[in-house]
């Protein structure tokens, strides 16, 4: 796992991908920060954290698209899969490498707090919880992107499908349809089931606590377990492919 982690991390910064990710991430988050805090002279980061997650639609695929698709295309997966390493270790090594790059980005943006001190008193603890939420969301999307990369040989398909799914998860959160109002009578059970499902899938709802600066274990568990699920699925995809 360590060997793969090291190789992947180095690959991010030997190719332009790591830099592209950091550049795009910092550019977009700075724009959101400028709009939400600097221009309005606010120190509360609630708005910032409510919108800044949109950045992942654009930048997560940069981190994840090549992780497995490229290995398959260049046949380097034959080296990894015939080496005395477990598939879980391969998947985790790659996941941790991408997470490290994300962490560098997220850590860099904590600089916004001292910037706000120039004109006010930011709530540091609350903001840090916001950053934690941002990082956890990123982890989930990295796991998702890795899964998409494991099911195709094409990096383009991996990237686009990852973006589309992240966008879709976002839109779900902003749909204000209450199915219980539309579906009544015999279908009422379906309405409440759909409402529950929408609420469950919605990333926005999970992020709300983090944005407000309250640390709640339920959403933490939500992100970590969903990320774990995608990592598990990635291992399964690679494992199953041998049997085709």
């Amino acid at each position, binding site marked *: 796992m*360590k*060997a*793969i982690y*090291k*190789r992947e991390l*180095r*690959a991010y910064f*030997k*190719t332009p991908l790591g830099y592209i990710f950091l550049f795009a991430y910092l550019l977009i988050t700075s724009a959101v920060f400028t709009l939400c805090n600097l221009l309005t002279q606010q120190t509360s980061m609630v708005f910032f954290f409510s919108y800044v997650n949109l950045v992942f639609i654009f930048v997560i695929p940069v981190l994840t698209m090549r992780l497995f698709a490229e290995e398959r295309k*260049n*046949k*380097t*997966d*034959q*080296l*990894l*899969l*015939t*080496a*005395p*390493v*477990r598939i879980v270790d391969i998947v985790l090594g790659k996941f941790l490498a991408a997470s490290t790059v994300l962490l560098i980005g997220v850590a860099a943006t904590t600089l916004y707090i001292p910037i706000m001190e120039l004109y006010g008193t930011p709530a540091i603890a609350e903001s840090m919880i916001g950053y934690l939420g941002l990082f956890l969301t990123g982890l989930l999307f990295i796991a998702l992107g890795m899964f998409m990369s494991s099911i195709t040989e094409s990096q383009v398909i991996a990237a686009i499908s990852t973006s589309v799914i992240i966008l879709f998860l976002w839109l779900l959160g902003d749909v204000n349809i209450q199915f219980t109002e539309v579906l009544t009578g015999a279908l009422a059970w379906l309405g409440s089931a759909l409402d529950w499902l929408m609420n469950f899938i919605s990333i926005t709802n999970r992020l709300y606590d983090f944005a407000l600066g309250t640390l709640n274990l339920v959403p933490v568990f939500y992100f970590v377990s969903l990320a774990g699920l995608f990592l598990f699925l990635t291992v399964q995809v690679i494992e199953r492919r*041998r*049997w*085709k």
Partner: protein
Amino acid sequence: MVEIKNLTKKYGTKLAVDNISFTVKEGEILGFLGPNGAGKSTTMNILTGYLSASSGEVSIGGFDILDNPVEAKKKIGYLPEHPPLYMDMTVREYLDFVYDLKKVEEDREEHLSKICDTVKITDVKDRLISNLSKGYKQRVGIAQAMVGNPEVLILDEPTVGLDPKQIVEIRSVIKKLGREHTVILSSHILQEVNAICERVIIINGGKLVASDTPENLGKSISNENKFQLRVAGEEREILDILDGVSGIKYVNSLGRKESGSIDFVVEAEPDVDVRTPIFNALASANLPILSLQTLDLSLEEIFLEVTQSQAGTYIADVDEEEIEIVNTEPDATNNAPEEVVEEGASEDESNL
């Protein structure tokens, strides 16, 4: 060392490997021979755990590849058909990575530089792999397989895409490796297998069709007494003269290959050298011999025979008559000498 039992692999409904069983002893160099698409690469991918068999068992040094993959894989160094190289790394970085990946315990510097010396990549070790020529990439691929000194080396067409000089070099490297390792090597070039391997397995259409030593395969060559002859003159006249030479079993005309001359295939009686009588007879009739060449084709012919018939004949069972039939067909004899020259003749000499 390597044991394969009733291995079968299906891709959908297509049977890629059909119930193959064989064992490879410690320190043996086994040649894995077959036409393109015969199932060589699939079998090797299963041996190394990259693919899983539909049924059957593979065990490496006593460890089952499915039940105990990590232990089994520790014993394997694998060079796939396409060397699995990361183009964004230098040779040194790449070998370092493989060293870490395989969790090798030997001294890093010493181990890696010894490997680099063996496959002669020391002078390119700081260059990016993407900038290397195909021959060098192939060597880096072999180096990668050698990292960690695995007991079994599995090499899928290791000399493909190399120039003749490199082919000779790589073959001698593999021969050297065979002293300390068990080597399984696939190829579709007969001379290569003949030059390196102690035992040969021929597979076709996913089935094992022959298994023997190259010596036994080679016997059919030395039994042969065939020549290709090019003589300037008229066909009728030359045939009349050749008919008068004693010891010739048959003469078959191949027609005009070069203006003013005719080509023939001549087969002599066993243990009779007819070259001098032929020369004397033709010289006294003032018909100059333009070329006289031994036809070392039988290995190719046997290969074709074995791989083209679905029945699966054991090499030793192919009798002389069958070989003769192939030979009398103009097509087979026309193409074959060119193949020999292209693929193996020059290297064969340097190997012997």
